[in-house]
């Protein structure tokens, strides 16, 4: 059963990933990308890591994709199509992706996977305590760094949006 679901998800992801880079209509490409991201969150659900799955849905599907759709809506007209890329670029891109696939396959097939005996359900509480712990294996430093980064981004956005005062 799980095997079947995995193959369905994997097929959806690969299919839409290829569609996303080959589509010549911009917003369609974005939607294909959205299906890939939803497929990834499906994989997370399958391995019982529902927190990461929900983060994937909220951040990528609900946040990033909506942002991309917004920018496409503002700059792109419905009847416009993207230019066809020339042959040289296509060959280069194909070579690069083949190298990427080979590297990933090599890593997967040489790694020794250990089947786990018991299932550990990860509670949200554990994640929260991990983020705030200062002991070994605690994540307080990256947590703080990210919050400073986010504050900097927000202030930057406000400054840019505010703009200069109009000259009289």
């Amino acid at each position: 059963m799980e095997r079947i679901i995995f193959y369905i998800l994997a097929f959806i992801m690969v299919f839409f990933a290829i569609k996303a880079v080959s589509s010549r209509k911009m917003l369609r490409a974005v939607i294909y990308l959205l299906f890939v991201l939803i497929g990834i969150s499906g994989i997370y659900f399958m391995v019982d890591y529902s927190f990461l799955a929900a983060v994937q849905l909220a951040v990528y599907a609900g946040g990033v994709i909506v942002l991309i759709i917004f920018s496409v809506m503002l700059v792109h007209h419905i009847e416009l199509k993207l230019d066809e890329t020339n042959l040289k670029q296509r060959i280069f891109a194909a070579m690069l992706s083949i190298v990427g696939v080979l590297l990933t396959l090599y890593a997967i097939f040489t790694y020794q996977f250990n089947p786990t005996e018991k299932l550990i359900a990860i509670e949200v509480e554990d994640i929260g305590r991990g983020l705030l712990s200062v002991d070994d294996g605690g994540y307080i430093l990256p947590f703080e760094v990210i919050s400073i980064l986010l504050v900097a981004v927000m202030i930057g956005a406000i400054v840019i949006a505010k703009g200069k005062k109009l000259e009289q």
Partner: protein
Amino acid sequence: MIETIHNWLYSIMPEGVASITEMVLIATAYLALFALAGLYLVYFERKVAAWFQLRLGPNRVGPFGLFQTMADALKLVSKELTTNDRIDKLLYNLAPYFVIVAALIALAVLPFSKQFQAFDINIGIFFLLAVSSMGVIGILLGGWASNNKYALIGAIRSGIQTISYELSVGLSLLTMVLLTGSLQLSEIIEVQRTGGWLILQGHIPAVIAFMIFMIAGTAETNRAPFDLVEAESELGAGFHTEYSGMKFAYFFLAEFINMFIIASIAVVVFFGGWLSPFGITDEITWFPQFIWFFIKVLGIIFLMMWFRWTFPRLRVDQLLTLEWKYLLPINLVNMVLMAIIIWLNLTL
């Protein structure tokens, strides 16, 4: 009853087939609930609107007009699906499904009663927020793919509104999560069994959080006074101007189901879910608990309809001012207040 059906299915079929049949049965039950809730909320809305405007409302089809919305649905099914030539066919046809599927997934985690909950995950509330943030994609796509200026403006307004007010919904729920210490919906209800409803347990900050949640929730569902997405006087019908027949009905139904979901979240987080008030039906074992859930949900929905028929529509700048200059700061302060109250053990 569920137990007997479960055993019966497994006795007549091999295990794999039985589990798939069970999934299909559950899905069908939820779809039926979806359709029924949608149709009767439309009826309820029309009756409430009529009451507020001193009219009678639908009263011809069936007793008290109860079958009016059924007849409307039949009419919508039989209508022609008109399309324009210069639209993006794929996205245009896909858009209604985004809205409706997001609403359906959210329905699955709601606890209607102790037994009646399809998917009880330990991140319940967070999952609800994540899924409900996907519905807006459908609206954006529908508006863009229609190749219509009114639809595009409506869709962009909807995007702005949903993204802004999502923050307030999330933060006000987070304030309440401080009190429960769990994101799992069934556990949130269990907390309220001994200590009373959360809106009483958390008193002042909980009441503020509830008010913010109701305002932001109304905005999330694109209902009046936040319905500038489909402001008739300026935009025709907003993002669904080009949709007809059943596809329009999908958008319309999803709006009502989203209202139902927002009301259900409010009931679970603030008003004790399916728990009876003062435990009056706890001893009666045959009493279906989901009745309490639906009574409370209807109360909240009535409140939202009350908003709709009494407040005038906001302008875009007023909408954004309300969220970013008032609700968000109040929400942040409120969360700190709640933390202090819990820290000092001042909860009731």
